[in-house]
């Protein structure tokens, strides 16, 4: 009977040992001082110590890294007091000095008097999980940083189109704080029209795909400033299987305006090319099909054709100039010449032209020879005078002021015309920018004259600027260095 019981106990022990050895986790036991007295296969695999190497040694000396020794001391104090130790995660070190992460569960081993005599330790290797978690956390951190500094507005909406999260840029766009968005619907945050446009687009798309659309409208209730927006939506999955929408908003107003300016430019370029062609064609046909006896008349018509060909050439040259400036190929050819004579010649030509209501008056003189590209400066003076004439219809005069000091010549062109609003003054030197102060008044032109003039002045290390008042007129100022070998 006793033998039978002994046999049964031995079978149970064997079974227990084989179970313990078959688990993936490290299972080992220690006395209350931490000396190891059992060590399963899992422990050998995880910590790389053979059972024979570790039995009888204190585990702290073998598998606890320096920075975790204090933690062990703390747990030891709990154990000594017989307190329950909750499962915890910590780092351990293997025989080959590799740092690993484990989750540890401790339970007391009691003797037959129910006194604690040791600890059963189950340690699960969570290194891989920790690495993945760490990588995921790093990735999330990076993503969060990216979202917060992104130059586009980003918002996450739940399925009821309420904001769950927004980035800083969106708060700048709509003028509402991050907290002001949370749990609020699109309609509560954005102006109603703007929200409705977004919702209409969201509803018209298949929810499982990423889709983009463009709308124009006002996003900011306070500033009420309209803009063009490119919006991209994509489905997102939140925790607990909840779905929603990620929304990226980008202000594309500048891009749209640039596109429009380029379209306007092309349309104007074709207009500027066709207008002289119309005159050339008309007079050519008159000469071809109509009987014109007087040589003087014929010469007059040919003269007009010739003038228009010149105008056409000028437009084509402007177009070529802008293309050269843009590709950095406009080269400068300096010579010494009297600036006053150049201006006098140009103005004399203008004052002879029929059909111009304004008389151009030269006020002052520079008395200087400059070392510069004559053709280019001629272009600048012509451009400023052309603009003055074009934008002061009906005015009687245009003033051209000349002055100089030891280093610079100064000239300015003053008209008494329509003037330029403050908003337009900021952009007037941009390429393709044409001022239209009033819808009813549209002035022909390519919108490249001032851009080219500014580039020329810059190439001469000069400065061009303006003062203007709507309805009163404009003055353009140019300051040019006299040049290296000026006399």
């Amino acid at each position: 009977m006793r033998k039978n019981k002994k046999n049964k106990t031995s079978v149970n022990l064997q079974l227990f040992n084989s179970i313990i050895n078959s688990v993936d986790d490290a299972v080992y036991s220690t006395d209350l001082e931490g000396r190891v007295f059992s060590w399963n296969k899992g422990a050998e695999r995880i910590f790389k110590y053979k059972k024979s190497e570790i039995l009888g040694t204190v585990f702290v000396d073998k598998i606890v890294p320096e920075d975790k020794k204090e933690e062990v001391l703390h747990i030891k104090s709990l154990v000594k007091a017989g307190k329950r130790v909750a499962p915890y995660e910590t780092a351990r070190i293997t025989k080959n000095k590799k740092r690993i992460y484990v989750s540890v569960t401790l339970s007391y081993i009691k003797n037959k008097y129910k006194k604690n005599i040791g600890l059963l330790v189950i340690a699960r290797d969570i290194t891989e999980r920790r690495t993945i978690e760490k990588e995921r956390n790093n990735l999330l951190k990076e993503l969060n940083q990216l979202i917060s500094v992104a130059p586009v507005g980003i918002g996450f909406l739940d399925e009821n189109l309420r904001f769950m999260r927004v980035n800083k840029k969106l708060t700048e766009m709509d003028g509402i704080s991050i907290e002001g968005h949370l749990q609020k619907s699109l309609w509560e945050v954005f102006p109603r029209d703007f929200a409705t446009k977004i919702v209409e687009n969201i509803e018209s798309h298949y929810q499982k795909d990423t889709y983009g659309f463009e709308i124009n409208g006002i996003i900011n209730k306070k500033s009420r400033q309209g803009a063009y927006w490119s919006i991209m939506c994509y489905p997102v999955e939140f925790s607990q299987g909840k779905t929603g929408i990620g929304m990226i908003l980008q202000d594309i107003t500048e891009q749209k305006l640039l596109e429009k300016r380029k379209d306007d430019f092309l349309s104007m370029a074709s207009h500027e090319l066709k207008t002289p062609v119309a005159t050339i064609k008309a007079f050519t046909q008159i000469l071809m099909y109509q009987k014109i006896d007087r040589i003087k008349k014929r010469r007059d018509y040919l003269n007009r054709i010739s003038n228009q060909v010149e105008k056409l050439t000028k437009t084509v040259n402007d177009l070529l100039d802008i293309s050269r400036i843009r590709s950095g190929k406009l080269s400068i050819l300096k010579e010494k010449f009297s600036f006053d004579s150049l201006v006098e010649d140009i103005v004399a030509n203008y004052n002879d032209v029929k059909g111009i209501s304004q008389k151009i008056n030269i006020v002052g003189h520079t008395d200087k020879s400059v070392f510069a590209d004559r053709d280019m400066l001629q272009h600048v003076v012509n451009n400023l005078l052309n603009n003055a004439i074009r934008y002061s219809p009906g005015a009687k005069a245009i003033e051209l002021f000349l002055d100089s000091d030891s280093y610079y010549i100064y000239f300015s062109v003053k008209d008494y015309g329509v003037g330029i609003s403050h908003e337009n003054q900021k952009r007037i030197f941009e390429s393709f920018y044409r001022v239209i102060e009033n819808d009813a008044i549209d002035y022909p032109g390519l919108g490249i004259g001032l851009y080219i003039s500014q580039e020329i002045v810059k190439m001469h290390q000069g400065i061009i600027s303006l003062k203007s008042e709507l309805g009163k007129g404009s003055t353009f100022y140019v300051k040019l260095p006299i040049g290296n070998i000026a006399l």
Partner: protein
Amino acid sequence: MKKRIMAIDDEQDILDALEVILKASGYSVKTYNNISSIDEVSNYNPDLVILDVLLVGNSGKVICTMIRSNPKTEKIPILLLSAHPSSQLKNITKKYNATAFLPKPFDLDVLLAVVRKLTS
């Protein structure tokens, strides 16, 4: 009696060419770089106004509206000329209630055919 045509264009050369062509075809022509008052139209009372749509200052569009909104001039046919693309010109013609349009550059025979039709 000669049909009267009023031509308004800021391009003096085109205006002169129109005058030569139309006079040679038997029309009475008055040319203007611009007009500031509807009286200039109603006083002359032309059979046709030829108008460049992109005039500096008081644009062709304003003149068009002015002619159409005055009982004395509202029925005068208006032929719009412009170097704008045809599609644009077509829209402007419709929007401002002009009668016909002709893109620049134009052929003399086409111009004369249109003028003949509009003044008949």
